[in-house]
């Protein structure tokens, strides 16, 4: 009998935390860290920063698909090694940035990026890449896909990404459920369920901690119940607002539906403090079909809002600034979007969203 092979010692995690960024900084950025003077934009997709030392750095920004295969990442690395001293960074909207200290490298790098299918743009008053979620590819609760919706939209908005012709920057997001991981944006596309969850009563007792599920409901529409002799949950469908909050802690509360999980459009979110205070976005349309693989109805609705904003807003007006000036009735008039009763807020604090004045534009 052979003696059992001793097991290899188990490696312990090194709890090293957030890594130092200095090994990842372009030398010009490291040298002028915290000592920049101003910037301008020589052309869409390119930033030019000048330091107090007189040093200059050019940044070329390009769009990516966010979920990248290793071959795509290696191609981007090849471009960075060839033109950008081997350093890159990513923006919050999954754009990649290449920094160069030599302006002569900018144009050839742009040619190389575009040749490899990466659009150069996303700076200034452009429509930048849509920040988005995981969707059907990886999420456990998605009502729709994310990458596919974004691909479809960015195909349509390609020229708006590559130019700076909007009144101000446009940030967009998509989210596959009402949790809205995509986040606040000038224009957001978010799943809006329209039917209460279908409950798989055979599963609830085994899978769900029922008091937790009851506590999650924002309108107290869920209560414990015995169904067919099994402990389960029931939903008061008159109270249910179809938000889907019960679904993550209890997958048998099936909220996603191929037909009745719709898409809603929200506008006017702004996190910057520039001009007015930050704002939350507001719902302006709902009931759009979850029409994979290219979501044409969503694209048409978003395109319409963007075209109207582009034609009507003044320079430096974000979508929310524009609506502040023209007023919501005019927003609905100009976009042709129907103002339905579902757009009048009745959640807590809703009276703050009613017009308590005689300020009316005729």
């Amino acid at each position: 009998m052979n003696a059992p092979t001793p097991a290899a010692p188990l490696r312990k995690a090194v709890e090293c935390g957030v890594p130092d960024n200095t090994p990842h900084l372009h030398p010009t950025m490291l040298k002028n860290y915290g000592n920049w003077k101003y910037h301008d934009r020589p052309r869409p997709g390119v930033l030019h920063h000048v330091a107090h030392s007189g040093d200059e750095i050019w940044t070329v920004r390009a769009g990516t698909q966010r979920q990248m295969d290793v071959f795509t990442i290696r191609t981007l690395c090849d471009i960075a090694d060839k033109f950008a001293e081997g350093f890159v960074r990513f923006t919050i909207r999954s754009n990649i940035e290449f920094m160069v200290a030599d302006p002569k490298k900018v144009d050839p790098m742009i040619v190389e990026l575009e040749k490899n299918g990466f659009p150069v743009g996303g700076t200034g008053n452009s429509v930048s890449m849509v920040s988005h979620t995981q969707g059907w590819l990886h999420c456990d609760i998605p009502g729709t896909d994310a990458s596919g919706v974004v691909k479809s939209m960015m195909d349509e908005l390609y020229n708006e990404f590559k130019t700076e012709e909007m009144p101000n920057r446009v940030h967009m997001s998509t989210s596959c459920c009402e949790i809205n991981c995509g986040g606040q944006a000038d224009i957001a596309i978010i799943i809006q369920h329209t039917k209460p969850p279908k409950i798989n009563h055979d599963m609830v007792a085994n899978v769900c901690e029922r008091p937790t599920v009851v506590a999650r409901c924002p309108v107290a529409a869920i209560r414990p119940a015995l169904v067919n002799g099994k402990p389960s949950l029931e939903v008061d469908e008159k109270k249910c607002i179809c938000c889907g909050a019960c679904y993550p802690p209890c997958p048998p509360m099936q909220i996603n539906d191929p037909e009745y999980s719709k898409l809603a459009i929200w506008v006017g979110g702004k996190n910057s403090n520039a001009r007015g205070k930050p704002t939350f976005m507001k719902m302006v349309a709902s009931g759009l079909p979850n029409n994979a693989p290219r979501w044409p109805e969503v694209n048409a609705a978003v395109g319409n809002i963007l075209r109207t904003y582009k034609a009507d807003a003044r320079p430096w007006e974000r979508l929310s600034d524009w609506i502040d000036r023209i007023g919501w009735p005019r927003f609905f008039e100009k976009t042709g979007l129907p103002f339905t009763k579902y757009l009048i807020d009745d959640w807590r604090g809703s009276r703050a969203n009613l017009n308590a004045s005689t300020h009316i534009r005729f």
Partner: protein
Amino acid sequence: MAKPMHPTPNLDQLESGPWPSFVTGLKRLAKDKDYMVDILGHLEHSYQTRKGYWKGGTVGVRGYGGGVIPRFSEIKDDAGKPVFKDAAEFHTLRIMPPPGMHYNTATLRQFCDIWEEHGSGLIAFHGQSGDIMFQGATSENVQPAFDAINDMGFDMGGAGPAVRTSMSCVGAARCEQSCYDEAKAHREVLNTFLDDIHRPALPYKFKFKFSGCPNDCMNSIQRSDMAVIGTWRDNIRTDEALAKKWFAKHGMNELVNDVVARCPTKAIQIKEIKDVRKGDNFSSVAVNDSQALEIDNKDCVRCMHCINVMTGALATGVDKGATILMGGKRTLKIGDLMGTVVIPFLPLKTDEDYEKLVDLGQKTIDFFAENALEHERTGEMIERIGLVNFLEGIEVDIDPNMVSAPRMNPYVNTIGWDDEVAKINAKKAAA
């Protein structure tokens, strides 16, 4: 060579058009990996039926309680076996990026090699919380993949009721509007809470985000429990050469309509140079031979608009630090909450200043851990107990900058009024 592809008529339609296609990337990976052949089949099934088919579970790495997002396929045959058997498990590793999401290519290439060996070969830069998402590994491969990534000096991010991975803007590395060292703040704060990141034991998630100026490129005010947003206390700086250059290009109409008229507090005026007020609170800069911009800094709310428009001609001050806001989050469960001011100004220059920031984070997390209900975010807790109780808990004095207006209802017992006035006066006298 991998096994033959499943037909993917829906996904195929996402390969046309000019934007980079993730489907083309998935198909490239599927040339070598049966795993990805089945992932494409799995995703196509979602497209055809318009539903998701992943369920969570429990997968982790030794020593940590979180950071892996487990996914098991729910597309099963009558016998309960996964239809796409090579894609039965598709777990994600959340890895924390360097502050500002800067990378040298050697690091990215090493990530690619590791993930090609142990995982699907699909990496997202970045997830919505700021993690590098290594998407798609079997349960068996999660540990070796993490070991290799961890050996590079990268660590697992947060998931579940934990301190979450953070984000900071490009900041001081390349932006003239940066008001503190975002990377230093990001690392010092986050690396204080590694135990709370890796071993989820809080009532619910807690997010820090770091933006270098009030443009808040990290969207911290709307989506973090503690937002650190750079600002300054002294006057806006000016540069006459750049102001004149801007004016020569843009002219008076743009100066009036795009800069002066858009100041939210009307702190900017155009004046004849001879009429410009001088004094401690005023900044001014000539735009031509006779006219100048005059800014009354006492009225300026540091919104950034004029600085954004006339970059360099106008610039942030030099007495820099951050405004700290707490309680931001999105909808579930009580509705959207914006972060609100808890510290109007915290200087961020010396090491001691950064220690104060870490200390505030520590007090806030301690209070949150003790007082929040299960699945309650910081903002919801503040709404339930009131800002004053929260401030007492984290030992912060009240300040009128914390409100947009004082109370507008009489429903409060003010019997302690005189005591409070006496305390305020005593503090003033001691200062």
